[in-house]
Structure formats: structure tokens, C-alpha cells
């Protein structure tokens, strides 16, 4: 029983990482119908920036902010820088290509992804980097037979908090309805006075910022980061996006959590080596029987 509970908590932790990255994919896809392959690399960039902040600011952070404060500072700096990077990439690599259609934009996104990944490699070196252990809260607690760390609980709570905020922004605020309207029908939304460029600016700020925060959390959780990890997380997050129904934000969150749980239980009860195979198999099976994802609406085809 304890083992099952532990697996659920681990699965939800990983799942919330996937969910937060998936939100970035889903927002961009919803509005632009573009698979933003560079999104996984924004996540890596955030992780590396957080690492730099923690390593070079360690004296200052321990003196003035404490452990948790240091974590927040690292996340904030990473989020702001990566949001700026997101806007820059959108301006330089995507915006000139929108008129050409969807497929050239996909190639451009792949190009941006290769560029970012190798820029990270050039700046921080090709080797694995490790988050400094002294700056990461490391407190175990025991509930009955349950082993969990405080960090894990904080990550879980914080992720759900972020998802809640995003859900609120998208569903309840005026700006959120502008995004949803643009996702439904871009031309009509423009006619209703929605500034499409500001919507794009917003999603390319929010998505990469969320990715960066996730990157710092992944760095804290696993300690080890590499410049290629964006591919893997990006792929999983994209899978989560599709699993939940592409462009559907609550769907992306659930997709991520489900994916994390599947991965954990697949790894624990079936085979650790085959867990990713298991994840992709489930994805394919879901799509065979529900071609629009778990929570996707069936759209009528326009002729």
C-alpha cells in the first residue's frame, strides 16, 4: 500500500513536470497551430540558468534568502530570461514564416531547437551538470511507511498552484478569453478587436516561463541536467498534449499527470527498461480509439 502511494506521488511529481511543459506546447498549438519543437529547449535553458544562478549566487543566496528563497530567486530569474528568449525566438524565427503556412514553421521550429540546444552546449559545455546539493532542501519525512521529501511536496504543490493560476488566467480573465477566441478563429477574433500579436506575445512569454520554472524544478528534483534533455521532456510533454487533446489546456494538464502516473506504474510493475515503450503504446492505443485525444472535442469537418 505504501509502495503504491509512493508511486502515485512520484508519478504525480513527474506528471506535473510534463503537464507544465505541455501547457506551453498546447497554448502555442492552440493559437498558431504550430508544434513548437523549441519548447523543450526553453525548458533546458531554464534549467541551466537556474543552475548558474544557484552556483554563482550561492554565497549571496544562502546569506540573504535561505534555501527556499534561493529556489524562488533562481526560478524567477530563469523564468524572466527564458521568457525574453521565447519572445526573441518568436520574433526572429517564427513571425517571418507564419504567412508561408504550417509546415515551413515546423522546420523553422526544428531549426530553432537545434540552435538553442547547441547554444546551451557551447555556453555550458557538453558534460552533465549537477545542481549544488548544499543549496537544495533535503528533508525527508515519514508518514507511516511512506518516504517522501519536503522538496517533492513543495514541487507538487507549487506545480498545481501554477497550473491553477494558468487555468484561472485562461478561463476567467479577459486576456484568457482573447487567447481562447484566437484559438477558435483567428480572423473573427481580430475582427472583434483582439490584438493577435499581443496574444502571441503573451503565449510566448507565459509558455517558456512555465517551461523554465519546470526546468529549475527538474534540476532540483533530479540534481543532474544535460543539454539534450529538452528533446526527451519535450517529446513526453508533446505526447501529453496530444493525449489530452491538442490545444485543450485542461486536457494537457491531465494528459501530463496521466503520463507521469503511467510511466511510474509501468516502470514499477511491468519493467523499468520498457516504461517509455509502455507510455507510447498507451498513446497509440488511445489515439486509435479516440482520434482526438482523451478530452478533445470531435470537430466537424468543413468542406
Amino acid at each position, binding site marked *: 500500500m505504501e509502495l503504491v502511494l509512493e508511486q502515485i506521488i512520484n508519478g504525480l511529481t513527474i506528471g506535473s513536470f510534463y503537464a507544465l511543459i505541455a501547457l506551453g506546447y498546447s497554448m502555442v498549438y492552440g493559437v498558431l497551430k504550430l508544434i513548437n519543437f523549441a519548447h523543450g529547449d526553453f525548458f533546458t535553458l531554464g534549467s541551466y540558468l537556474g543552475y548558474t544562478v544557484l552556483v554563482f549566487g550561492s554565497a549571496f543566496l544562502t546569506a540573504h534568502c535561505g534555501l527556499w528563497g534561493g529556489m524562488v530567486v533562481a526560478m524567477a530569474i530563469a523564468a524572466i530570461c527564458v521568457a525574453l528568449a521565447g519572445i526573441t525566438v518568436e520574433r526572429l524565427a517564427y513571425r517571418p514564416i507564419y504567412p508561408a503556412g504550417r509546415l515551413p*514553421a*515546423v522546420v523553422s521550429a526544428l531549426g530553432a531547437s537545434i540552435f538553442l540546444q547547441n547554444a546551451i552546449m557551447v555556453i555550458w559545455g557538453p558534460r552533465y551538470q549537477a545542481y549544488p546539493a548544499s543549496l537544495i532542501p533535503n528533508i525527508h519525512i515519514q508518514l507511516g511507511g511512506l518516504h517522501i521529501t519536503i522538496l517533492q511536496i513543495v514541487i507538487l504543490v507549487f506545480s498545481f498552484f501554477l497550473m491553477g493560476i494558468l487555468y484561472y488566467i485562461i478561463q476567467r480573465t479577459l486576456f484568457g478569453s482573447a487567447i481562447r477566441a484566437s484559438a477558435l478563429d483567428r480572423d473573427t477574433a481580430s475582427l472583434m478587436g483582439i490584438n493577435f500579436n499581443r496574444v502571441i506575445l503573451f503565449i510566448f512569454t507565459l509558455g517558456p516561463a512555465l517551461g523554465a520554472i519546470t526546468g529549475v524544478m527538474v534540476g532540483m528534483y533530479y540534481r543532474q541536467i544535460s543539454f539534450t534533455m529538452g528533446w526527451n521532456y519535450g517529446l513526453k510533454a508533446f505526447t501529453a498534449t496530444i493525449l489530452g487533446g491538442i490545444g485543450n489546456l485542461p486536457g494537457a494538464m491531465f494528459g501530463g499527470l496521466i503520463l507521469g502516473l503511467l510511466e511510474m506504474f509501468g516502470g514499477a510493475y511491468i519493467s523499468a527498461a520498457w516504461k517509455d515503450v509502455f507510455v507510447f503504446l498507451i498513446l497509440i492505443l488511445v*489515439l486509435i480509439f479516440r482520434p482526438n485525444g482523451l478530452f478533445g472535442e470531435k470537430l466537424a469537418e468543413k468542406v
Partner: protein
Amino acid sequence: MEDTRTSRLNSFFSPQQGMLFAVLGIFIIYPFVANNYYTDVAFFFGIYALLGLSLNVVLGEVGLFDLGHAGFYAIGAYITAILNTKLGIPVLALLPVSAIAAALFAYVVCSPIIHLRGDYLCIVTIGMGEIIRLALINNPFDLTGGPNGVFGIDFPSLGSHFVIDSSIEYYFFIWIVVGFSIIALIRLQNSRIGRAWNCIREDEIAANANGINVRYYKLLAFVLGAAMAGIAGNIYASKLMCVSPESFSFMESCLMFCIVLIGGMGSIPGVLIGAAVISLFPEIFRPFALYRMLIFGTVMILMMMFRPGGAWPRRRGGADMRSIMNIRRKHG
């Protein structure tokens, strides 16, 4: 006077034919001029050209987003590697076997997913490619050798006299295969099948309404594309003499995708240009060592910025669905 002379010259030897012969001449002379290293670079250009042509059938002709094409390539390479090293079957005899195995695999895997549209098909093919790669790493039944792969694959040979083992011979081997594929694909483009494919790409519903069996033609594209990728896998495996899972990663599928789009969807000369960009640019930028992939990413973005339709877009013939539909719309 001047005009008639050029036109007489043209009827004898059109500029296109002249270009073609010039390119062919360069291709034949090239390996005798270049050293082994540059011959090998041209060999890998050929491999990417074949892979690009194979994906072009699926993505360019029919417009199906396939980002798992490296999976079919892997099947061809591993079938060759395993059957050659375990059973000692000659590599050349395995060439059709690899093609058929990859085609069969594509048929079985794609049958249930062929109804998916656009990005959903895209993620399923990504998933399929990843499953194949992970399965190869996990070494099922002790066949694939895990992360290390399979070693000691033979050279392609006919009897003991004719053995393909030098860079130049491999160069001619791959480019002859590419040449035959190009001829076959041009014939296919102008056939009933090619027209049906393009029709599906332009408007699937209209194609269906016109009595084209959409499911059949989509599957046909996947099967044919997979067979060609399988052939590329066979040649690649025998050239490297070993295969390992990292050669068939998601990145490889992405590169094939880029070959087709950089060149121009459905355009055969375009695919060759795309393959040249993908295979030669990282070599050209080798002096920049650390920065070469940075430059490569930038080149991809710039190409899409300045030539979004590809370097050599397909010229649309009379049977272009969209232009017909536009005329119809304009005139009622």
C-alpha cells in the same frame, strides 16, 4: 537567324538535358577526383537522398506527417545486420528482404492508425519510431545487441569476385540505387497512383468524393516509403559494418522531414537539394567545430524564411486539384 539556330540546337539537346548530362558527368567523375573522405561524404549524401525520397512519398506526395521514418530505416538496417551476422545470408540478398520487412512492418503498424489526421498522425509516428528505438536498446531475445548494436556485417558481394568494399564502389552502389529510385518515382508521379496521392494531399474529402480509396492509397504510400527506407538501411548497415540504436533517433526522423521541406514538398530535385543541405552543411562547417550545429540551425530557419516553398518547389501540372477548384470557385 539567331533564333532558328538556337531552336535547332534546343531540339537536339535541350537545356534541361544539357544540365542533366552535366550533373551526371560530375557525379561519375567526382569519386575519381575526390579523396576517400569526400567520397564517403558523397555516399552519405546518397543515403540521405534515398531516405529523403522515401519520406517524400509519404510526406511530399500524400501530405502525411511522418516523424518516425527513422523507424523503417532501422528495421531495414537491423534485419540486414541480424540475418547477416547470425545466419550468414549475403547482404545483397538481404536488400529485397530488408525492403519487404520494412514494408510489411509499415503495413501492420500503419493500418490501424492511418485514419488519424495531421498532428495526431505525426505524434503516433513519433511514438512508433521511439518504440522501435527503445526496443532496439532493450535487446529483445538477445537479437539487437542493446545500446552497442550489432557488429561485423559483411560487404555486399556477388560470389567471390564482385565485392563492394571500397569507398568508390559504395559511392556508385548508393547512387545507382538512388538513380533507379528517381526514375521509378518520376514514372510514379505521372501515373494514376501519383495523381491520386496528390489529390489526397490537396483535398482529402474531395478525393474521397471522387472515388479514390483514400485509405488504400495512404497505406500504399507508407508501405512504399518504408520499403525504400529499408533499402537505405540495408546499404547503410553494410557500409558502416555495424548498426546501433543511436543512428535511428528522433533527430534522424526530423532531419528527413527537413530534407523534404527544405527541398520542396513532392519535388524530386528538391529532395536532392535538401539532402545536400542536410548532409553536406555539417561537413562544410566542420572547421567551426563547436559552432557548426548552431550555424546549421540558423541555416534551416533562414531557408524557410527566404524560400518557404522549398529550394526547388514542384511545378504544378494540369491536374492540380487546387487550381482546378479555384477556377471553379471563380466562375461559379
